[in-house]
């Protein structure tokens, strides 16, 4: 997901949490950022700071990078995005729609496209801390 689009989604989700939980203010949000989408965390941080207002004004965003891992469903081989990094144009396609990884990547051992992304695919809100 594009960083600004992602920031918009995060702000929207956290605002909904604040409303549903009757929170007066949100103090801290922890995000788990999957490596596969190659999110530029500085741009994301900047976008979040620009969009955070109202109950989210002054909120602190903590980000944890989760390494992208793959497991072949055919031969069981496990590998990381880091080890077998594709060319830039493919990385960019994966940045926008991570599922196109299945079109462009193959198991480094048996060449199968039938693998699972066992970690580090998306962006998740893992915790939200606020005051009532």
């Amino acid at each position, binding site marked *: *997901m*594009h960083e*600004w*689009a*992602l920031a*918009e*989604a*995060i702000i*929207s*989700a*956290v605002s*909904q*949490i604040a409303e549903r939980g009757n929170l007066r203010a949100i103090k801290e949000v922890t995000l*788990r950022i999957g490596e596969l989408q190659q999110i530029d965390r500085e741009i994301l941080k900047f976008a979040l700071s620009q969009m955070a207002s109202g109950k989210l004004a002054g909120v602190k965003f903590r980000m944890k990078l989760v390494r992208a891992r793959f497991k072949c469903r055919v031969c069981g081989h496990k590998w990381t995005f880091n080890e077998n990094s594709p060319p830039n144009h493919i990385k960019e*396609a994966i940045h*926008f*729609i*991570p*599922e*196109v990884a*299945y*079109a*462009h990547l193959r198991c480094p051992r048996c060449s199968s*496209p*039938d693998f699972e992304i066992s970690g580090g*695919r*998306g*962006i*998740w*809100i*893992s915790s939200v801390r606020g005051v009532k």
Partner: protein
Amino acid sequence: MLDPRLSIIEDRLSNIERTIVVSSGKGGVGKSIITSTIALILAREGFKVGLLDLDFTSPTTHIALGVSAEKIQPIEDRGIVPPEVHGIKYMSLIFYLGDKAAPLRGNEISNALLEVLAITRWGKLDFLLVDMPPGIGDLMLDVLKYFKRANFLIITSSSKMAFETVRKLLLLLRGLGAEIMGVIENIKLDDSTYIRREVNALGEKFLGEIHFDENLEEAIGSVEKLLKTKFADEVRSILWELLKT
């Protein structure tokens, strides 16, 4: 753990007046060419139109519209702004797949749809046409979940075998309370009234027939030629009748 994409989808689709999901359940009945032709006709009439190709594993609307992913790409601007093709805002995974096949399992199809809906900024549209892949599975359930006010336009061929799946789709959609616009019989070769009778017996609307047009294949890829075919004329008359209601 919360996936933030879910929170933004409604917002992304909020300025779309009407979503028409073109579906069949069965492959090879002409969904993609009908979807593309409807989008072109509406755009020519001055409507703001979007086309979303959800056939992730084998998208084809770009062929009908003569789109080359090497020449046209979405614009990055706080998400993805679909490129405008013949007056249609066009989004397809073809922009990210090139000529590669995407062998996706169910959960991965759901994730790809979620991603596309979360990042695509359609803006204001009168119509969003959604081209569905064959099958009644994960993607259909996801479309029902995310496009809450969608209208389903159902395509069948004259084949009894195709209609067997279409019947199941109609019953499923009806059971789920979806808005069914009706059924179009495509690639019609004879005078059989089988499909019309079956659709009426189900209590659904039979919208019309589109006859086999031997000149259609040659027109695919050239929108000017496509819009002059007998096929397009028949699509046009069904469409105007449909939009009157």
